[in-house]
């Protein structure tokens, strides 16, 4: 019970800070203020904001869960986050230049302007919105997990209490995003990241000592008694899967609407370059967090309860530390790691909907103030959709999220390649995008080729573009002549 009370107090305090962050009315006065913080965030705030995308509840619970159930294959996350930054180094600053010059707030805005194609903009926006929903759900299911594990013994029915906590957290996230815009998650992410660092360093250092006596002994036990968990084995999660999933996830990371939102809120392009250089050092912790999943496999009973591996980190905390306050602080960290990123995600999806689906497609004459207000109200619709989705398909969430990465990466030719290849044509990219997403689902349900679905999708996507781009040469030339985005600067 002490653990649960501590968790609740910490979480509510941080949510309060989120409301304070938006007490200035300017934070919701127009879409640029609300969705990308007026594009006025300095290097440090960007650091925390982008960091917030990497250190989410899904990272903690998901990676330790993978470590527990798949062993070494879970370490695909290491090359994944490491490689995402050199990629970002080449893409984000260029993108930021265009975005700042033409007041763009989403990647779909960029696609629309770059290709002078409303259809492509809408497609990119819909890709983002659809694949974000299961991701938001996964974030917030971290909270249900915390309540279910921490509340065991205190409540007659911890599952039901977990669902109530889930609904309350969805409402809190929606309210604070509605009021404060990006400033809420930006400021709360600083507290969250500070907690994440302290708690994770404490865990990484103390878990081996408490459970094994020393670091050396922990590795020794792993090598002698559980060698199978330390290398990749042929099969569905062999080395080909490892390589393709790391590469595809790295390419996809900054294609996520919430990650690009963080990047576009920067004050200048050089901040983004600097962050791409220094943020990866932040990821070293990720390696040890993943290893905690293997530790969990070594010390905890191997239960077959569904969803057990998804909250294995929480059981490891319970198994290792016996002080209620310590447990509570740790659970609170996981809960915050789900609330803060969820808020950025909901915000990004709402902005995509208001700007790129409603204004560009359905209601072209919408005024800016109407667009801002719609985006803010859409926060509630988006959270409701995510909640509905989570209640309807609770068991498919993880696999949907994995397909989400595969789907999301298909916009990289439209966003990344287009920055470097001036004669890339709209029709080729549009057909490639559709073919890529189709291939992801075909491979998942029909072909079942080895490796990551997104890899095969992107391969088809790029082959289609290379084959078709020649056919649309005239279209590309026309775009080159008439497009202000390609001719200035």
């Amino acid at each position, binding site marked *: 019970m002490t653990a649960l009370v501590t968790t609740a107090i910490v979480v509510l305090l941080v949510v309060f800070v989120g409301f304070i962050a938006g007490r200035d009315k300017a934070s919701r006065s127009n879409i640029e203020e609300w969705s990308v913080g007026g594009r006025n965030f300095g290097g440090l705030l960007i650091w925390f904001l982008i960091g917030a995308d990497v250190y989410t509840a899904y990272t903690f619970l998901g990676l330790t869960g993978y470590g527990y159930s798949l062993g070494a294959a879970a370490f695909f996350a290491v090359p994944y986050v490491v490689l995402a930054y050199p990629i970002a180094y080449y893409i984000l600053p260029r993108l930021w230049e265009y975005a700042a010059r033409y007041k763009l707030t989403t990647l779909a805005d960029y696609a629309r302007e770059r290709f002078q194609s409303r259809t492509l903009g809408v497609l990119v926006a819909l890709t983002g919105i659809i694949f974000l929903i299961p991701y938001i759900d996964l974030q917030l299911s971290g909270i249900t997990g915390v309540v279910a594990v921490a509340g065991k013994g205190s409540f007659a029915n911890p599952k039901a209490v977990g669902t109530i906590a889930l609904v309350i957290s969805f409402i809190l996230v929606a309210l604070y995003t509605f009021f404060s815009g990006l400033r809420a998650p930006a400021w709360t992410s600083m507290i969250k990241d500070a907690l994440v660092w302290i708690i994770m360093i404490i865990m990484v250092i103390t878990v081996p000592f408490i459970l094994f006596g020393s670091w050396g002994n922990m590795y020794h036990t792993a090598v002698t008694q559980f060698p199978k968990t*330390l290398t990749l084995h042929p099969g569905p999660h062999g080395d080909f899967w490892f390589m393709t999933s790391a590469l595809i996830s790295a390419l996809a990371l900054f294609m996520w609407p919430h990650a690009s939102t963080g990047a576009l809120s920067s004050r200048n392009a050089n901040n983004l370059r600097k962050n791409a250089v220094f943020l990866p050092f932040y990821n070293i912790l990720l390696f040890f967090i993943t290893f905690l999943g293997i530790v969990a496999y070594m010390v905890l009973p191997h239960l077959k309860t569904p969803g057990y591996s998804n909250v294995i980190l929480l059981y490891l905390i319970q198994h290792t530390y016996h002080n209620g306050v310590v447990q509570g602080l740790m659970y609170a960290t996981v809960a915050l790691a789900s609330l803060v990123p969820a808020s950025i995600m909901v915000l990004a999806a709402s902005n995509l909907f208001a700007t790129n689906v409603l204004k560009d497609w359905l209601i072209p004459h919408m005024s800016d103030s109407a667009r801002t207000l719609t985006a803010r109200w859409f926060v509630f619709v988006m959270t409701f959709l995510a909640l509905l989705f989570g209640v309807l398909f609770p068991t498919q969430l993880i696999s949907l999220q994995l397909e989400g990465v595969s789907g999301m990466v298909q916009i990289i030719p439209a966003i990344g390649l287009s920055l470097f290849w001036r004669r890339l044509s709209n029709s080729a990219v549009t057909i490639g995008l559709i073919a890529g997403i189709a291939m992801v689902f075909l491979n998942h349900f029909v072909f079942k080729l080895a490796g990551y679905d997104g890899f095969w999708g992107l391969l088809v996507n790029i082959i289609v573009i290379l084959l078709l781009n020649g056919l649309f040469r005239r279209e590309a030339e026309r775009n080159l002549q008439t497009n202000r985005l390609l001719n200035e600067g």
Partner: protein
Amino acid sequence: MRTLLLIIMLIGNILAVPFVNSIHPLVLGMPFFLFWLLIWMIITPLLTWWIYAMDQARE
């Protein structure tokens, strides 16, 4: 040069995986595969830093 550095990153982090997928030799008690991933986690940002420095010098 910058392209070369990117290719090195790709080889170290991705393409080398099938060849380093083993427990032995242990380094600092760590299985070799995990140790490899860990050092590339440090080398890669250093290489990115190098690219950044070259870009800054050019400006």
